[in-house]
């Protein structure tokens, strides 16, 4: 029985989304999968680490005073020597970990930082490795890397807070090449936080001001006309496969902000509304040609950033031009996009099991790479 640490929470705007992903999409099915024992490892919003069986139940986070409950719980430390170990306080026995299932979203986790830690611990982990996660979580880097692979996205301008602070005029000159309407996006934040759609210069300036409160890098890109927004979950290592192409249905707003995504039912119709509001169509109602192009674009983008395990690729389609553009890549989709995989024929238990198998395969392959070798470099000193 392999002990799998499911790490979730963390210092992220998407902390709460991560709790749901970890418990509903990872821990619950893993309890039914043979050969794996999930160990909940929770990082609170202040960055403190906890591990306790009770953290694997959603009721822990949805009932009572969570902070008070946590205050009664002993924090843990982690050891990276000879694999990953959870160092528990006082009399409790330390817990050796065989594998890790990262279930964090956004900063201090999904952005590659957790993967870096796990690489240091030399433990197999599910999902994208550090480099792919870091690229995917930076919209600017994603553009640069995928463009190098010839993948088309909307026209854009990338700049930092320093660029804007030192010479805003120069930035606006670059922005003048773009055609309104535009989207202003922080490069590192997910869940549509601080993303604004603008129609004119005044709105653009305000949106930049707003976005710079959240991030030090911004991307401004042209809106795709005749838009059909689709998303494609992808899974695998060397030979990845897609689930179904899922179409986001338009609401009154022209794009999904955090409220729409997670509080009102979101793209997949979950959230507090109890799934009554369905904001996606599965599979997407698009031509066979566009469907195929979407799958191909998703797989190409997945490979371009070196993703492994699982990711979700968001695409924008100009339905008149019949063109598919890459929007962004999410290295750990919320709730693993299990609803889509389920419709595609992969159950929750099978999804988690496959991801753990991919993690082990990836780890085994990485272990074969030479990382150290003997030299006489030090002899010269």
């Amino acid at each position, binding site marked *: 029985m392999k002990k799998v640490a499911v790490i979730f929470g963390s210092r992220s705007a998407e902390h709460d989304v991560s709790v749901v992903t970890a418990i509903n999409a990872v821990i*619950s*099915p893993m*309890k*039914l999968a*043979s050969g794996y024992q999930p160990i909940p490892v929770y990082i609170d919003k202040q960055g403190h680490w906890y591990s306790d069986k009770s953290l694997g139940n959603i009721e822990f986070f949805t009932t009572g005073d969570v902070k008070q409950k946590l205050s009664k719980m002993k924090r843990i430390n982690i050891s990276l020597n000879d694999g990953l170990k959870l160092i528990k306080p006082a009399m409790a026995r330390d817990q050796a970990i065989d594998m890790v299932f990262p279930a964090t979203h956004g900063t201090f986790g999904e952005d590659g930082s957790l993967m870096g830690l796990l690489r240091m611990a030399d433990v197999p982990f599910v999902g994208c490795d550090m480099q792919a996660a870091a690229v995917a979580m930076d919209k600017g880097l994603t553009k640069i890397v995928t463009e190098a692979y010839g993948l088309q996205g909307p026209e854009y301008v990338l700049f930092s807070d320093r660029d804007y602070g030192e010479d805003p005029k120069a930035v606006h000159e670059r922005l003048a090449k773009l055609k309104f309407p535009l989207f202003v996006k922080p490069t590192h934040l997910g869940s549509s936080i601080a993303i604004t759609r603008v129609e004119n210069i005044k709105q653009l300036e305000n949106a930049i001001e707003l976005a710079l409160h959240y991030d030090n890098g911004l991307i401004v890109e042209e809106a795709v006309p005749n838009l059909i927004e689709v998303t494609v979950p992808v899974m695998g290592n060397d030979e990845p496969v897609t689930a179904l192409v899922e179409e986001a249905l338009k609401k009154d707003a022209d794009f999904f902000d955090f409220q729409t995504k997670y509080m009102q039912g979101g793209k997949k119709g979950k959230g507090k509304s109890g*799934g009554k509001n369905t904001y996606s169509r599965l599979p997407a109602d698009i031509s066979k040609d566009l469907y195929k192009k979407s799958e191909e674009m998703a797989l190409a983008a997945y490979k371009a950033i070196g993703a492994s395990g699982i990711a979700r690729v968001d695409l924008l389609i100009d339905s008149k031009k019949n063109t598919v553009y890459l929007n962004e890549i999410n290295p750990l989709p919320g709730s693993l996009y299990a*609803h889509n995989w*389920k*419709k*595609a*024929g*992969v*159950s*929750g*238990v099978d999804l988690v099991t496959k991801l753990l198998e991919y993690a082990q395969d990836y780890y085994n392959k990485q272990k074969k790479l030479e990382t150290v070798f003997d030299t006489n470099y030090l002899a010269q000193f």
Partner: protein
Amino acid sequence: VKSFLSAYKPNFVTTIVYMLQQTEYRTRYYLKWLWRTHDFARVQTRGRLDMTTAAKALVFGAWALTFFVVAIGAYLVYYGLNSGDNTFLAFVGLFAIFSLPFVVAHLLLIPTWLGKFFIITPMRGRQDVIAHGIFTSHKWKKIAVAGSFGKTTMKQILATVLGEGKKVAFTEANLNTSVAHYRFAKSLTGKEEVLIVEYGEYVPGDISGFNTTFRPDIGIITGLNEAHLENFGTLEASADNILSLAEFVGEAGTYINGDSEKLVMRSPNEATTYNNKEVDGWKISSIRVNTQKTSFTMKKANKTIKASSSLVGKHNVGPLAMAAALASNLGLDKKQIESGLAKTEPYEHRMKPEMRKGHVLVIDDTYNGNIDGVRVGVEFLSDINAKRKIYVTPGLVEQGKRSQAVHQELGQLVGKVADMVVLMKNSATEDIKVGLKKSKFKGKLMEIDDPLHFYTNLDQITVSGDVVLMQNDWTDAYH
């Protein structure tokens, strides 16, 4: 060690009283559970102790006994260690404390025996007399339903169909004991035209006793199998008990399920049989079964009935046709009968389909408890189309000495149609696996340690288009 120490935890007392309640204070079942249980901390997983007056008295008595024994034991230890040559007494005291949980668990049976002898049995006798008086006070058409399986469904079908033209009263849900009959009798107003009473089988001779109280005009016997072997020892004893209904009402008033081979070979020759081909001169044709409904046509002389029901599975055709034939005999017209049949619908936990989110059809047949029900389920699975056919079971309870053979047969039956089999791990699991192997089952097998977690997370194993058949259930008493 952890399991052993669980007997010394404070909740041990509520655990044993809970199990007395779960086994309905039946000594044999309680002792069987007690003697095979190792970890008492994992008993109350499906439910909690219902604090009835009897339960409160038992909990109080158990704690009183515990304190008494601990006090005496402690005194003996103290006295033994401090009074010269009485070390032996110290050991006796230690032994008394050490063996306390096991002594209390057994001594608790004494008040239940006394309660049964001095309170329950005399009270039941009085209730039977009262019920008999009520049942014979009016000229009702009285129908009794007995059998090893399918009684509640049969009763509900009859009540629904006959209810279209008659004022019908019937015993609720699966309540089928003498107490339930007494309460039913007390609820009658005298305005009813038809009474339908379900007979349970618990001990040899109980059906004969029910006949004496209820005095039915019509007897319907739904089947015979090994479902109650633990109570009756042999199938013959079970058959004798059930067929005492046929003896009471006479062959002319008896309807026998013709699909139950074990029943037919022991039944009176002149009894009317019903199955999915014929009943009482009605010929059945054009049977259609899908995941939503069952339909068929009945013809007799110049009469035709087109039946459609939300009950799923070919096995329902016989009971539905039997109810229609009886309704016709009791004077209901074609329109009333067809309307009544159309109103029949699945009952809780009996082949009840539920379309869940993500286009997954779950058939809840967890009240099934016998191999004939498994055959019915397997037949249903083979009759329908699905992306994957998933069969979920813990196995069958109360199979007595035939448990091994029955579970191997279950495995063989299921292995031929299921794409995936999910077994709740228990003493029957290995036998089911042997059966699956014999059937050359090539699908996926899952073994579940925590049934509660499984049932509440069923959606984690399914994909769109799956059909899941959940049969049988093991309460805490069987683990």
